[in-house]
């Protein structure tokens, strides 16, 4: 029986060493492969009912502890690429004083060091990176239809488009949102490909129905 126990122990050892042989999908993944581009949209909205947009002149940087605005090379590139993409879809960029139909907010989110559930709803009415005064809607927050799910545990970039034309009950509705998540989303050389990806998958985003 002693021999049997020995063999059983050996078998158990083999079992344990084998069970660690599973493949780790994250190990052989490039930065490009690690990234996901998520777009959310309000499917009750006809995006060709908008004509004009205005975009923030700097990018909000949100961390768990504070928010600030920045205009690094990355931020300039992001503003430029989003602007060009919207113009290519037939929207006209106007000054924010010219009553644009859509407001575009850009936010870099950094939750690298402490993970939290990130509820975009908490942007509502918070000055700093969403400044209702900036858009000429003092006292208005903007809210998200409930199907928007965002969970953050890392660096991310959010592009939000808010309907300024049709406020509902003293609130503005975010009608479109793009989240860039994964490795390298804060790297300036990736901005072009990330922005084209989110517009490519949002074919409905155009100023005319043609």
């Amino acid at each position, binding site marked *: 029986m002693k021999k049997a126990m020995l063999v059983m122990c050996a*078998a158990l050892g083999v079992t344990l060493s084998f069970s660690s042989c599973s493949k780790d*999908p994250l190990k052989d993944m490039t930065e490009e492969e690690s990234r*996901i581009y998520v777009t959310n949209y309000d499917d009750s909205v006809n995006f060709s009912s908008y004509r004009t947009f205005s975009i923030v002149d700097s990018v909000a940087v949100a961390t768990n502890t504070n928010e600030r605005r920045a205009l690094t090379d990355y931020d300039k590139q992001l503003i430029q690429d989003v602007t060009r993409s919207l113009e290519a879809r037939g929207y006209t960029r106007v000054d924010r004083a010219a009553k644009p139909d859509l407001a575009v907010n850009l936010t870099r989110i950094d939750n690298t060091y402490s993970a939290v559930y990130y509820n975009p709803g908490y942007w509502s009415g918070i000055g700093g990176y969403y400044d209702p005064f900036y858009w000429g809607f003092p006292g208005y927050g903007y809210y998200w239809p409930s199907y928007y799910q965002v969970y953050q545990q890392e660096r991310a970039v959010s592009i939000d488009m808010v309907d300024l034309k049709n406020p509902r009950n003293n609130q503005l509705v975010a009608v479109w949102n793009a989240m860039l998540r994964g490795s390298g989303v804060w790297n300036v050389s990736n901005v072009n490909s990330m922005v084209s990806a989110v517009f490519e998958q949002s074919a409905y985003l155009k100023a005319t129905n043609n």
Partner: protein
Amino acid sequence: MKSIKLWILLVAASLGVHSAFSQVRSPLSINADYSVAQPFGSLKDYANKTSFRGWRAGIQYQLNDQLAIGIRSGFQEFYERVPRAVYADKGTDISAVQTRTLQVTPILATVQYQLTKPDAAVIPYVGLGIGTANMVYNKYYGQFTDRYNSWQFAASPEIGINIPFGKGSPVLFNASVQYSYSPYKQQEITSYNVLQGNVGLRVHIN
């Protein structure tokens, strides 16, 4: 730990029914096999690659010359990486490289019937395993995963051969083909259907 207790109980119970039979080799044996598995049906749609990451091991007690009972566990991993594509849902589109994995760890009670006497040069057998399987489903979108862990009923009929290394040798070569089924439902998987080939050794120890 639970499964080891079960093994010991099973062995103890089977000692009670230990009847006299022509003893070519000792009744208690352990076995270990390398396994290659081919998914079918909806599992193939989820991860279509043949899995070369698998093994199984068990312990078996010979009740008489031809009938044996035992317990068996193992591991099999299915894996496929899908190039970047856009996945659409209501109001949401996700562009991602998907990595789909399913890790399966069965724990089965087994019964095996040998079609020849134990002193034959080649011992064909049929077997059936019934029990449970731990299913760990991970669908990665880029580096983010959608993970589900559950236990399911599992059944696994099998045919195979044992070839002793010499007459009466306690060490036998094993080769078998088994079909594994589980009514496992997760996302796009509507049931678990796998054809699995096993090659390994059986050693009679006591």
